[in-house]
């Protein structure tokens, strides 16, 4: 197997009083789309910010390795990290309405990043910015480039954000819930755009979402997170149709069926009882307090993710009795 573009190993993010992401490992290959799925509070956004080394104030990476393109981002010094950010590793955020600076034209904000990393002249950067706006399919880019963000719709702003992110041809693009704040009709357009750019630019895409519908259509591989841990990983067909972890099963049962000929009227959506807050202070499997299949054994230690079939990992002690744990991934 070739070395993946991004290889996160045993990542733990710590606040002074809590560890919202624990022992997380996953990888993204060049040109691959990996989706991280989980409910609010599962640590997916923090993971993304940790990769960018933009964790909020008190949070820090306490253990783990983030191998990206030959460097360990977890220990890289800030000046070197600044050369990575926006250039080889880029990120777009959930809130397009507030993610652009209101007092600068969108052109200025694209030119910003181009001039920083590409050493272009003012005119060349502007010409490139117009190309980029065209690339993300903003109509009439020559005129739009001098517009301020408040003149643009949410979808347009997210396109501008994408233009900024891909401006320097990053190897990996992190998209943190890029469509959550957008109209349903715009969501598919934006995801198609991201997918097309991934293919054309040959970059890896780390898609963070809570929308299982998005996963099925756009991801090559899915990592399901719960309470800061990876609970299951596999290709979308397997995760969406043959999940092994009770949490993934619960998530699917709580989603509207999107299969052909089905309707939300076919049956009630099931909830996962309890709240993710119950995972706090849990010694064993974090999902145990809410798990319908919980066994007495589950409270001892957090279960490791093990291979349940080729390319399919799950972290559940009920599924993986101790004798099967030789195959630890």
């Amino acid at each position: 197997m070739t070395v993946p573009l991004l290889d996160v190993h045993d990542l733990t993010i710590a606040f002074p009083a809590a560890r919202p992401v624990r022992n997380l490992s996953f990888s993204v290959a060049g040109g691959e789309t990996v989706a991280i799925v989980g409910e609010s509070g599962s640590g997916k956004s923090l993971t993304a910010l940790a990769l960018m080394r933009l964790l909020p104030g008190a949070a820090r990476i306490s253990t783990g390795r983030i191998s990206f393109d030959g460097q360990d981002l977890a220990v890289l010094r800030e000046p070197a990290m600044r050369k990575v950010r926006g250039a080889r590793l880029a990120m777009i955020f959930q809130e397009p309405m507030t993610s652009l600076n209101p007092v600068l034209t969108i052109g200025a904000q694209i030119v910003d990043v181009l001039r920083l990393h590409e050493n272009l002249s003012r005119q060349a950067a502007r010409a490139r910015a117009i190309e980029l706006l065209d690339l993300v399919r903003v109509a009439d880019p020559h005129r739009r480039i001098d517009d301020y963000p408040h003149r643009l719709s949410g979808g347009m702003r997210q396109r501008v954000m994408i233009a900024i992110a891909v401006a320097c041809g990053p190897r990996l693009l992190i998209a943190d819930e890029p469509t959550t704040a957008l109209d349903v009709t715009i969501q598919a357009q934006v995801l198609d755009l991201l997918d097309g750019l991934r293919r054309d630019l040959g970059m890896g895409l780390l898609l963070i979402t809570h929308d299982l519908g998005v996963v099925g259509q756009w991801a090559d591989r899915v990592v399901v997170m719960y309470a800061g841990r990876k609970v299951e990983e596999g290709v979308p067909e397997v995760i969406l149709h043959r999940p092994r972890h009770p949490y993934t099963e619960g998530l699917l049962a709580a989603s509207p069926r999107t299969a052909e000929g089905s309707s939300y009227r076919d049956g009630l959506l099931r909830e996962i009882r309890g709240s993710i807050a119950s995972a706090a202070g849990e010694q064993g499997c974090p999902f145990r307090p809410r798990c319908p299949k919980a066994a007495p054994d589950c409270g001892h230690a957090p279960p490791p993710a093990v291979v349940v079939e080729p390319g399919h990992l799950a972290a559940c002690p009920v599924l993986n009795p101790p004798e099967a744990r030789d195959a630890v991934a």
Partner: protein
Amino acid sequence: MTTARRVLKTLVRNGLAAIPTVLAIVILNFFLLQLAPGDAADVIAGESGAATEESMRQLRARLGLDLPVVAQLQAYLSNLAQGSLGFSPRYNMPVADLIFQRLPQTLMLLGMALGFAFVLGVTLGTVMALNAGRWPDRMISVLTLLLYSVPGFWIGLMLIVLFSIKLGWLPSGGAETIASGFTGLDLVLDRLRHMILPSLTLSLFFIAVYARLTRAAVMEVAEQDFVRTARAKGLSGFTVGFRHVLRNALLPVTTLAGMHIGGVLGGAVVVETVFSWPGLGRLAFEAVLRRDYNVLLGVLLLSSFVVIIANMLVDLLQAWLDPRIEVR
């Protein structure tokens, strides 16, 4: 329509809208002044040491003070409509000449004080915000609290004691060295030296206000999503702070600065008196003592013009700083 024409239209419209405001200010001030006990005739009589009922009556008749209040107002307004601010019997010259003689001095003082306040206030506020909770923040906090609560005239006197008397670095008052014969650059430098202490005194309170406001604004803006975007681009801390944070944080500060111009003018009365600065503030102060109401009304009218014009300029500045405020 070009931006220049739009700006011009806005200015004209705002200017027209200011006319009723100015009229209301004149009338209100007129009646307020009537509430003060005594009039110019009393002051003149008091200064001369003796006066008879007869001479007082003559004096009042000559100054127009024997007319009913409404008639006096009418006379003042009709004068004003003809572009005249009236005549000052004390200075024996038209009020307009008197005021325009003094206006440049006050405007210079005002400009320099606001400049000090803005530059120093924003700098201190930014330093505080960047070090929030640590010792530079706490130290400047104490300093601003001090500046905020100590009266301007006292600070002015203390500055004179320190810089003029003890150290002898700066002059203690006046606008220029009398009979120095300076010309050209020497004259400008001499005037600047005279301006430093009064404008600093006038600005200290506002330095404190802007520093505290800037601190709050910078800390709020620094939390915004677009700042994270800027950092995600790989921009350095300085570029993020200057280009993305400070520019947005300046919006509330400029709003407040515009509203404070009136307050600075008020402070000028005290500071000009302490530093014997030949400006409008001291003229107003003396006019009050002498019940020279024509002069006082003229100063107040002109001050309201200054405030209105300054606010219009601040509006334009804001539209330039923040594209979301489009000049309509």
